[in-house]
């Protein structure tokens, strides 16, 4: 297994240690707003353990995926704010 993994977050390439969860990779990319709520408020990770669903992002085209529960894979495409 490679030590590091490269993925794209909002079309920007980012390199993280293998095994990093997507929410952490997003924070490392300097992004704090993961999504907009139903009334348009900015939201980010809350519970960090897969319960609150606030960290939902789009991963490889699949929407509403919990970023705190998903491990970065090589070539993964992540979109926040959708």
């Amino acid at each position: 297994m490679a030590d590091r993994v490269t993925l794209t977050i909002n079309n920007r390439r980012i390199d993280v240690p293998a095994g990093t969860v997507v929410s952490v990779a997003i924070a490392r990319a300097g992004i704090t707003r993961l999504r907009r709520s139903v009334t348009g408020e900015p939201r980010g990770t809350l519970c960090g353990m897969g319960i609150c669903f606030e960290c939902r992002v789009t991963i490889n085209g699949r929407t509403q995926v919990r970023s705190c529960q998903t491990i970065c894979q090589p070539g993964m495409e992540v979109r926040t704010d959708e």
Partner: protein
Amino acid sequence: MNRVGHNFEILVVGAGPAGIAAACAAAESGKHVGVVDTASTPGGQIWLCAQTTKHDRQASAWLRRFERCGGKLISRATVVAQLRPRELLVETNEGALELGWQKLVLATGARELFLPFPGWTLPNVLGAGGLQAQIKLGFPISGKRVVVAGSGPLLLDVADSLRQSGAEVCCIAEQASLWQVMNFASHLLSHPGKLWQSLQILTRLVGVPYHTSCWPLRAEGLERVEAVSLTDGRKSWTEPCDYIACGFGLVPNIELPLLFGCALNGDVVQVNDQQETSLPDVFCAGEPTGVGGVDCALVEGEIAGLTAAGRAVEATRLFGKRRRWHDFRRSLSTAFRLREELKTIAASDTVVCRCEDVSFGRLRQFSSWREAKLQTRCGMGPCQGRICGVATRTLFGWGVESVRPPILPSRIETLVAADMKPRAESVQ
């Protein structure tokens, strides 16, 4: 999508301390044991990453024992429903699983209690345990200013993790009074291990202000938190910060026991001395029976595992140990009981249900959880009331109501795979 069946003599839900202890006790008795957990590695939230860091000797020892015990871990798997009696529907990335059991141990752990206050929905306001979990996974916190707020001994542990990761802990705001905290500390005298652990943490936290009788009033910021107002009931002041780590204690995860129909005792699952619930062959151990921490969970798990494996007499030898941890559990809940003022910090326009953006002002008009759900969609979003249901219970006293399958958002494929055909063939 494939549907695969497995049958276990003893199936454990949850691979935290209680589940691991139950699985070890049962598997070491020669039983065919399965353990289902949502995470990719065993240990639950409290032992997150313990396998790789090896700092926690208790965790390392149990995880090693679990690895050798012969129990089969089914990781990254979520229980979504009960298909038929003694059969669970489980969702994994690879497809749906049907798991049959003869004895079931529910060790579903706990989550954090969040109470709404103005600004709590801003990015960078995280749960205290939530931020700690993210830090363990490599979250970039070094050099950031963090206010730790809420209640319970977890706050100290989180502040310790933050400091060790290079964050600047501005202060810890504990809502319990100094008297209550000191009273709790005096109980630690009868648990020397815990006392020693606490003293070590306190030594590392020298220089961090620890305010008792102190709670957050509002988080400020536009796109993310920039400051938090705190009060001690007499005066209030503002702390500039990059993050707020806020949790008001722990809430047992009782959704699955409720789905099965286990009787409750107040807000927790009712169990007898053998850790059996009101349902035949269904056991419950750890936080769902009352929040008591890791040692309490371990001994309850062992008792459940031994009894489920038909070694009830040996389990009775652990009753004394469990009694001591139940004393600890009682002192924990007394000391960190939430103060009434916390029910008044939400403003009319403060969002309570974060999935559906339902405000405190709207919810206040209703008299029950059910009525509020029907009229506002509160609790009907993806988290299914995991966050706002507990908040409204605390704020308005609304009761726990029935849980329906699927208990969490599930993929259509999973539900399709679970069509109600006769039993899936066993592949074990």
